[in-house]
């Protein structure tokens, strides 16, 4: 038991500080992905909700692809493919600069693609929960389309989509673990380095699992608070 505590301590002897840095990377990655995923997901939902068939179809292709591919594969496609593609394009244009897609950015892009396609479904079903009269009411008050969307629809939409989005956030937190495979030093990667060096795989992978569990518990209680806050205006019936 004492040995395990030494291994987990902070400082020269222990791996505590290394793993803590990994946790920071995990949380940063998830938080950095969230806004992109939400905004893209919302735009995709708008496209799916539009009356223009071509726009609907384009949005549906997007979600079909990124919901159907394994997340790990999406990650590899972005990590290797986008870099090769970008550099080919730049070369074609005759410039001699090169882009580097590092593993953090690759992870962020891949996870945003996946998150946004699932989030678009959450937003879409929330849209269906808002009666059409809400739009009409907005227009009748003289609000522009943009104002109606921003001031009338969006607040209700967020409230309706919140439970589904909360679930997606929990999934996102877990999926960040995949970036450890393309070399980003997140919680899982730091733990597996520690496991290899110390030959204590059970201890360190167990710790990694517990860390993710704690992150999930913190998120759940945070989400519950946000949900309560979002419903504060609801009349009790």
């Amino acid at each position: 038991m004492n040995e395990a505590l030494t291994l987990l301590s902070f400082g020269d002897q222990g791996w505590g500080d290394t793993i803590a840095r990994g946790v920071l990377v995990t949380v940063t990655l998830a938080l950095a992905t969230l806004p992109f995923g939400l905004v893209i997901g919302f735009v995709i939902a708008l496209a799916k909700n539009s009356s223009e068939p071509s726009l609907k179809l384009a949005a549906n292709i997007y979600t079909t692809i990124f919901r159907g591919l394994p997340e790990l594969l999406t990650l590899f496609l972005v990590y290797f493919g986008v870099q090769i593609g970008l550099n080919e394009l730049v070369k074609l244009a005759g410039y001699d600069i090169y882009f580097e897609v590092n593993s953090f950015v690759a992870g962020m892009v891949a996870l945003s693609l996946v998150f946004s396609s699932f989030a678009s479904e959450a937003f879409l079903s929330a849209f269906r929960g808002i009666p059409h009269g809400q739009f009409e009411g907005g227009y009748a008050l003289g609000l522009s389309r943009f104002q109606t969307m921003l001031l009338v629809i969006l607040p209700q939409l967020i409230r309706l989509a919140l439970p589904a989005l909360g679930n997606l956030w929990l999934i996102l937190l877990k999926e960040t673990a995949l970036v450890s495979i393309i070399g980003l030093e997140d919680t899982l990667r730091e733990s597996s380095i520690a496991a290899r060096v110390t030959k204590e795989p059970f201890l360190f992978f167990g710790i990694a699992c517990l860390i993710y569990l704690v992150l999930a518990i913190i998120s759940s209680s945070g989400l519950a608070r946000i949900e309560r806050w979002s419903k504060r205006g609801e009349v009790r019936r």
Partner: protein
Amino acid sequence: MRVLRMAAAAVAILAVVGGAEAKDWSKVRIGTEGAYPPFNSLTADGQLIGFDVDIAKALCEEMKVECEFVTSDWDGIIPGLQAGKFDAIIASMSITEERKQKVDFTNKYYNTPPAIAVPKDSKIAGTSDADLKGIALGAQSSTTHSNYAEEKLPSADLKLYPTPDEYKLDIANGRIDAVVDDVVVLSDWLATDDGACCKILGTLTPDLVINGEGAGIAIRKEDGELKDMMNEALAAILANGKYKEINDKYFTFDVYGG
């Protein structure tokens, strides 16, 4: 017709812009793995050490260029070169036909044979395909050793690992019965506490097509100039004794090979 002419003009302009760019090699970025002791590895505080690293530093000194090291996972090291994350790979990469399709190589800078290591109490008799029938054989993926096992040892049950660290973990706990890797890499590992479990069963006769003529420095195909610079510098350090000095720092025998 007008469209065609305009397109031709555009292509010509692009070609001029592209061709006018001559690369300036005052600074070279070297890619390496950092997980393949004694050739290249990372110390606890993140310093790169090893034979490859010292050779690279000697070459840079000889070429009078500034060198910067970049570490990359082995699986992604050739894509990384192609994508421009670094300009040369000095990471014990064997010169093979398959790799030559994608990148160019300098002359070899060392050549050591592959070998098979087994647990000390192993009952495996020899290193032939028949001896290894049905045993679980570990190797690092994307290496000449894994290709060798696939082609020459088809009766063994090959397991591929991303880095040597994982196969070391699995042979220590008995999940695999043998590993194949470079003889120097294996000997170096067996000399540590970590490798106390195992012994070398025997070396393998390299196959020129699979194992190639030795380890070379990989360069992008379009960077012929850098390749020539590297080859000259390599010849120079071989001639002036610098190579031998580095060789003797790490090994008790000559790794340059015949």
